[in-house]
């Protein structure tokens, strides 16, 4: 129970960095979407660390936890819309490579 919030923040930072890395180097649209999910999760972890940081044994701060739930909600919408776009993209280009984005029709 007594994990210092600093360590949570560091873990979140590393995960976010990996997410950014995936977002930049991959050209498979689905993997790019997954990298975004990874970044959103890192953001979640940051919110929770903040919630943790501002709690005392008497007063528990739950603002961060509530925001983490909102982030999960946003992530769900993002995934649904993103995947619908991926399917539309695939129908148009017969590929999900970002490289075919410039090719057009």
């Amino acid at each position, binding site marked *: *129970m007594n994990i210092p*919030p600093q360590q949570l*923040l560091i873990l979140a930072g590393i*995960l976010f960095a990996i997410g950014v890395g995936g977002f930049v180097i991959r050209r498979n649209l689905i993997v790019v979407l997954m*990298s975004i999910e990874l970044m959103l999760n890192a953001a979640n972890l940051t919110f929770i660390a903040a919630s943790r940081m501002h709690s005392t044994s008497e007063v528990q701060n739950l603002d961060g936890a509530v925001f983490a*739930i*909102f982030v999960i909600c946003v992530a769900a919408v993002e995934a*649904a819309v993103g995947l619908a776009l991926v399917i539309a993209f695939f129908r148009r280009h017969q590929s999900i490579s970002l490289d075919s984005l410039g090719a057009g029709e």
Partner: protein
Amino acid sequence: MEQLVFYSLGLGAVIGALGVVTAKNPILSVLSLLWTFFCLACVYLLIGFEFLAVAQILVYAGAIMVLFLFVIMLLNLGTSEAADFDTARAMGRRLPLVLLVGCTLAALSILAAQQVGGTSDEARADLRSVGSLTDLAQVMFGTYLLAFEAASILLLAGTVAVVMLAKRERRKNAA
């Protein structure tokens, strides 16, 4: 003991995340991401946010990742030719940029972690569980009621958007 568990979970999450961005096969990416989510859910449990851990598994593992798998299988992308455009060379070309961004971000987060204030470690020391659902509901439907309603509108908008995206495509096919 808790530190040890946290370190192994963190390590697991990072390995999973690396798997997501490096796997050739998108299905392996999905599984790695799933593993990362599980590790993070366990971290939430460890620090007492039980509801978040369950919500994480319910929404991410139970719905979002199934959707990803579904789309991958629907488009039949689980084959090796799908990864042809993601060759090691193509990825390698952008690696320096990634390393730069990644190192900057990690350094920033570590710096930020050192700077942050909040309550002292001693005051937190005997903090047991935070996850009381009633307290969470109080905050969510009290202080953040407006944000909650906004989130529900966002969900509705997302639903409409997805339906429209799928539907427009069908009309074009028919024409």
